[in-house]
């Protein structure tokens, strides 16, 4: 393990904990002295970069779709794409992903199509449908509820002997305050399950800064309370995040000796923009603070790193931009073409609908037949 551990805290944060802090790229995208770059070939590094660029463009388009009133409230990820893409890059196809409402890029890299990402924003009933063979859960909106579930999924895989796989569970810094975070992590420690919990500490839970969220010195240190591994990583350094996640996944699947399987990763990062498109961050934080973080931007750092190695050329960069734009446009077109039948309301409540539900479905059918669909599109208010 020759990866260089950052000698001290991230310049943008201010803690005094003893937890290790992992960085591979410096703020400008140069490999830190003594740090070892993960074993990824040029193709892979380029693919990671492309996904990060795609994530950023997707975010911009989604925000603008929302402003145009075409989609509902959207939770942006700009500033956090590096960590999202890198964590998913560390996964194998067999691994499972438990995302929140913000991990669009993490889902995409693990197999969810871009148009699928947009579906719920258009409100289509199939919005959360997950295709066969894609090991991703529908986004978790109630904060931290995914933590015990991810633990249970990992436990079940262990019990059924599927030792080739692990579960990766995302959560925010705010999520660490919920009881479910505690219960899930504690279960993970006790049952020693193959799960990796990635806390995307983007410094805020909506308007509440991390230091009002908890008095603990770091989030990673909370791992001690559960007897699991804790590690902090520069969340704007995709290579460091990749490496830390890869190691945690390896340990989850093949613990050495008395090592414990589960890990809590604190990926220190920043939400550049608003919590969601309904949020106005200027009410509760300074633009100057954001600027400090933007100087360590994951897109820029990866670009510098790849350029310095001759992997990213101007030509390739242009091709990436083109591909990405086309992909996003296609996804939007496809999502906008979708339609939802009101009948969908009654589907999949149970495997077999109850009699009552069938009656209710008939009730709605009768009303639509009698009055048509227009009266149902009246804006309620």
């Amino acid at each position, binding site marked *: 393990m020759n990866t260089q551990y950052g000698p001290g805290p991230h310049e943008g944060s201010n803690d005094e904990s003893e937890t290790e802090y992992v960085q591979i790229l410096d703020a400008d995208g140069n490999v830190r002295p003594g740090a070892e770059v993960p074993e990824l070939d040029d193709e892979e590094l380029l693919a990671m970069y492309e996904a990060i660029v795609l994530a950023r463009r997707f975010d911009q388009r989604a925000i603008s779709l929302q402003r145009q009133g075409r989609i509902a409230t959207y939770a942006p990820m700009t500033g956090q794409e590096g960590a999202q893409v890198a964590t998913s890059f560390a996964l194998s196809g067999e691994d499972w992903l438990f995302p929140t409402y913000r991990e669009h890029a993490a889902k995409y890299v693990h197999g969810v199509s871009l148009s699928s990402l947009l579906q719920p924003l258009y409100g289509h009933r199939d919005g959360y449908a997950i295709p066969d063979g894609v090991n991703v859960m529908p986004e978790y909106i109630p904060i931290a509820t995914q933590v015990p579930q991810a633990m249970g999924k990992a436990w079940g895989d262990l019990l059924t002997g599927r030792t080739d796989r692990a579960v990766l569970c995302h959560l925010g810094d705010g999520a660490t305050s919920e009881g479910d975070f505690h219960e899930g992590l504690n279960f993970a420690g006790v049952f020693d399950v193959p799960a990796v919990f990635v806390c995307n500490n983007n410094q805020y839970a909506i308007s509440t800064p991390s230091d009002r969220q908890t008095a603990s010195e770091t989030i990673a240190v909370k791992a001690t309370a559960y007897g699991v591994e804790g590690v902090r990583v520069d969340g704007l350094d995709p290579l460091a995040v990749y490496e830390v996640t890869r190691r945690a996944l390896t340990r989850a699947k093949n613990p050495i000796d008395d090592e414990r399987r589960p890990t809590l990763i604190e990926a220190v990062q920043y939400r550049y923009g608003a919590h969601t498109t309904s949020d106005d961050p200027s009410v509760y934080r300074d633009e100057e603070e954001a600027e400090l973080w933007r100087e360590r931007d994951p897109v820029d750092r990866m670009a510098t790193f790849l350029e310095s190695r001759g992997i990213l050329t101007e030509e390739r960069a242009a091709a990436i931009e083109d591909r990405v734009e086309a992909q996003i446009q296609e996804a939007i077109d496809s999502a906008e073409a979708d339609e939802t*039948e009101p009948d969908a309301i009654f589907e999949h409540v149970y495997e077999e609908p109850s009699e009552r539900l069938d009656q209710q479905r008939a009730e709605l059918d009768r009303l639509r037949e009698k009055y048509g669909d227009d009266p149902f599109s009246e804006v309620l208010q």
Partner: protein
Amino acid sequence: MSATDDGTRGPPTDAAVSDEAVTDSDGAEELTLVEAVCDGLHTEMARDDSVMVLGEDVGKNGGVFRATEALYEEYGADRVVDTPLAESGIVGASIGLSLAGMRPVAEMQFMGFSYPAFDQLVSHAARLRARSRGQYSVPMVVRMPYGGGIKAPEHHSESKEAFFAHEPGLKVVTPSTPRDAKGLIAASVRDPDPVVVLEPKLIYRAFREPVPEESYEIPLGTAAVRREGEDVSVFTWGAMTQPSLIAAEELAAEGIDVEVVDLRSLSPLDTETIADSFKKTGRAAVVHEAPRTAGLGAEIAATIQEEALVYQEAPVKRITGYDAPMPLHAVENYYLPQAVRIRDGIRETVEF
């Protein structure tokens, strides 16, 4: 308890209103429902030092719906507190604050996020008075925006008022007008027992009405007759009041005279007003957003047949959300009772 027809004829139908408060000739400001909630909190905090507000993003940010706007600036960080993200912690801490003599007003950001606090609410807030034989009490308020129609995913659109109404020791209220919002907030804050205030976020900004500047209470436990009628009674609350009134007007044209009762208080229920209205009309519908089965519509139907079976000329019609989770927003208007469904249901009742 008896009905108060307070003259508020319910919300007008123009959906979009300006974001600026208007002061009318009498000095009463024209406020939206959410502004009236906020105004109620301001008034109560000014009146009583022990009133405090706590929750997620209620401080500097003024609440994700702006329901606590400017409270932080006015009353400071001790009385308007951003808490960690933990609903059970918020309600549990509020119980403790109550025991220390404070009057906490806790916000759950959405009703769908109140369930982690369910245990603290039903096992403790509701029962500490009874358990201690009156020695301790929990005069707290839990505010939560509820209901659908805002184009948000399922958890943001919950309407499970029956969960709270089934627990003895809790009170549950929901306003349908700005004026009631302020008055119910005031009454809830002053009430010696825990009150869950359900705020219909769909109509947070739907319309304005004059709201008195001074403080006043809408007594808990009292329904409001929003429209008098002779033929059939509609019992409803919150955001369903308006489509019910629209349906009533449309039916008036057909010669069906509908009485619309806005219950306002879901626990305790204003049984007297319900029974009186029903005895007059002999027919009724209940309109709510919650799933039908074991919703409050059942309680109202059961109450009616207990109190007034001999007057009953038709089954109490339940016009409600379906027994399914709230769908994504493309079809949520099919899930929620719309005027068209209400109209049809009332006609069915009348034609029975």
